[in-house]
């Protein structure tokens, strides 16, 4: 599966403007977009997910046009069928683990019941070792458990790709390495393509089958200090 991204977006008010200009194409199953905070990584990921509408350009996934300013195409986020792992997980605070995991399985006006189940929910509760805490609320969980709930919630719908926003930054350093290894194994097993944004160079070694360097609102193929640069 391939991503083609070529977008421009201008954000902010009159006093402080930020111009994002990102163009890349990737066929790698694991793509890492690396850059310092404030470089526009999150905006790029949000645009891919459909949460942010670029001013111009286009976004394609496996030949399907998700956004094209010229043809006035904007597939809404709900129809793109991507999983999205938010930096601080964005778990629904009033719902227990089961309800969070089952959240995307129904699109009606009511939240899943406290004992929400089904084959997919049970499978992911087991796969990510969440059965013990299935009836607890997010604020009763550890950081690692919260991340696993967010992963289960994103994967239960069988997304076409997984978008990860700084997935390890909210974890303790000692937990970070173990979680990387776990995510690595999980991704190998389920085999869906990912795009990960990060400002931690360690993530490149683990997940950067293809690495893009984002700085000054633009994409580069090499790090800033690379002797073969720019």
């Amino acid at each position, binding site marked *: 599966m391939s991503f083609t991204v070529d977008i421009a977006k201008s954000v902010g008010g009159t006093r402080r403007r930020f111009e994002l200009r990102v163009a890349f194409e990737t066929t790698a199953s694991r793509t890492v977009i690396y850059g310092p905070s404030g470089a526009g990584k999150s905006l790029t990921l949000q645009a891919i997910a459909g949460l942010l509408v670029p001013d111009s350009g286009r976004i394609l996934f496996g030949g399907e046009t998700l956004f094209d300013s010229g043809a006035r195409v904007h597939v809404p*986020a709900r129809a793109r069928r991507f999983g999205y792992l938010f930096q601080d997980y964005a778990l629904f*605070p009033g719902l227990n683990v089961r309800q969070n995991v089952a959240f995307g399985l129904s*699109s*009606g*006006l009511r939240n899943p019941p406290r004992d929400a189940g089904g084959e997919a929910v049970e499978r992911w509760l087991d796969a990510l070792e969440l059965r013990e805490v299935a009836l607890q609320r997010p604020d009763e969980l550890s950081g690692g458990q919260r991340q696993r709930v967010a992963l289960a919630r994103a994967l239960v*719908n069988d997304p076409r790709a997984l978008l990860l926003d700084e997935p390890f930054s909210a974890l303790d350093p000692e937990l970070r390495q173990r979680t990387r290894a776990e995510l690595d194994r999980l991704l190998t097993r389920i085999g869906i393509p990912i795009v990960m944004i990060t400002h931690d160079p360690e993530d490149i070694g683990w997940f950067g089958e293809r690495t893009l360097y984002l700085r000054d609102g633009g994409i580069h193929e090499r790090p800033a200090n690379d002797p073969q640069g720019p």
Partner: protein
Amino acid sequence: MTALITAPDPAVWITLGLTLKVAAWATGINLVLGVAVGWLLARKAFPGRELVDAILTLPFVLPPTVLGYYLLVVIGRRGWLGSWLYDTFGINLIFTWQGAVIAASLVAFPLVLKAARTAFEAVDPQLEQAARVLGLGEWAVFFRVTVPLAWPGILAGTLLVFARSMGEFGATLMVAGSIPGKTQTLSIAVYEAVQAGQDSIANTLVLITSVTCIVVLLLAGRLVPPGTRR
């Protein structure tokens, strides 16, 4: 020497019933309108947003008699809306309990509007984004994520509306008058009793009003969870 408190006349219960009916209708109307307008003001940036907020807050600072006068100008028999209603449907709102509902609704509206707007502004937009990525449409996001998170604040505002509607006097008197058993609410009945020198009736009415309000406040304390859960 007259008794301090007379045994309640059956008419008192009719007055209490009418007062509760008017307050309940005003609360229901304000709940729907307050949630809708509060959400618009919190989430949609449009030119003149703060001016709209200021105009809708006017009932909080204007004397109720001024509001009553405005209402007579608008929904009175010769008012621009009132004359149309009468000519088209034969509907007259002046000196009716429905007119009292409109007066009470208008006076109490800023209370629920402020509460709802503040509550909606406190909802983390990222949680709504998470729901969109998981496949939810905008109505489902609103009812499954936004409203549950804003609910404690909305509920607190709604209960204030009920209390304020029960005690409404000035605008109600101007629009609905003081027809016993038809438009005479408790607060107006107290005024009439005092004017007529019927102190023991006034005492009874004051006691009933106070007890009713204490019951409402106790209920409010039980309904609104301690601290605003997120």
